[in-house]
């Protein structure tokens, strides 16, 4: 595996004699935007995302000497952030983690097969110019139980491979793919059923609660 400590060589080796603060600054500067993006997608709102980023870098600061360099720095940070997120949410809510059953998504009616996402004729960028659609997407992702959300965010939004997501979440690739599929099916149903443009969406599908 790539020894990613070298990726920080522009500012000296992270474990060099520049000291902890310099090491931290290099780590922070190179990864803050990545971590904030990930945290925002996981948390959905600014303050919680900032809290998560702070917790992540604080843990990274403390744990850097234990970082063995056998994983990419970004993977290591994603892992710290994911664990911190699980802890933070548990502290705040304590709601049990819901399982998304695949059966839940197997269509039983014509309408459920044919749920439409109102992006006809638009490329994704143009479709996302629509505020309602953007908000509905964020809401749908926000409603996902967090272990499904993490799989979806890491894979479809952060663009990591199933193998990398497995390493971060401590899961087999197979388990990652299964969670990802359920998460996508959930978001698809939420997006289509939200009736983003009420007049263009067929209401044949059952309503979602």
């Amino acid at each position, binding site marked *: 595996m790539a020894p990613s400590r070298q990726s920080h060589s522009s500012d000296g080796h992270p474990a060099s004699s520049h000291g902890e*603060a310099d090491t*931290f*600054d290099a780590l*922070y500067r190179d990864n*803050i*935007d990545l971590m*904030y*993006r990930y945290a*925002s*997608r996981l948390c959905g709102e*600014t303050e919680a*995302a*900032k809290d998560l*980023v*702070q917790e992540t*870098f*604080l843990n990274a*600061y*403390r744990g850097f000497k234990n970082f063995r360099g056998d994983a990419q720095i970004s993977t290591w940070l994603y892992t710290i952030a994911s664990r911190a997120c699980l802890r933070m949410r548990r502290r705040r809510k304590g709601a049990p983690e819901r399982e998304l*059953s*695949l*059966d*839940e*998504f*197997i*269509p*039983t*009616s*014509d*309408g459920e*097969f*044919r*749920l*439409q*996402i109102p*992006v006809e004729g638009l490329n*994704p*960028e143009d*479709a*996302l110019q629509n505020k309602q*659609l*953007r908000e509905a*997407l*964020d809401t749908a*992702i926000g409603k996902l139980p967090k272990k499904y959300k993490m799989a*979806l965010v890491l894979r*479809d*939004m952060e*663009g990591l491979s*199933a193998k990398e997501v497995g390493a971060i979440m401590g899961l087999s690739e197979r388990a990652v*793919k299964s969670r*990802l*599929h359920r998460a*996508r*099916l959930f*978001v*698809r149903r939420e*997006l*289509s059923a939200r009736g983003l443009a009420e007049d263009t969406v067929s209401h044949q599908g*059952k309503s979602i609660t």
Partner: protein
Amino acid sequence: MVKRAVTKRRRRPESTSHQHEGGRCLHILRELSAFIDDELSNNICGEIRRHLGACPRCEEFVASLRQTVSLCRRSPAPVLSPNDRARMREKILAAARAR
């Protein structure tokens, strides 16, 4: 462990034009993410393509799943302002020194 979703749903298919062909739709619906991600063997991919060609409902299903994934992939992410970036760095360093 798995709840039977069917029992919760009263709505039944209004048309009988769509046959589940011995569970083929069900089987295919489970594989659609892997299909979209191009992770399936040629054989299974071919089987799914043939099914999609013959089954407009599954075709629409996969189209909407693809759109969902595209939207996720292109969804814009918020960016921190330089001020927030600096402020957060100070906070983290202060917390690291305090503990």
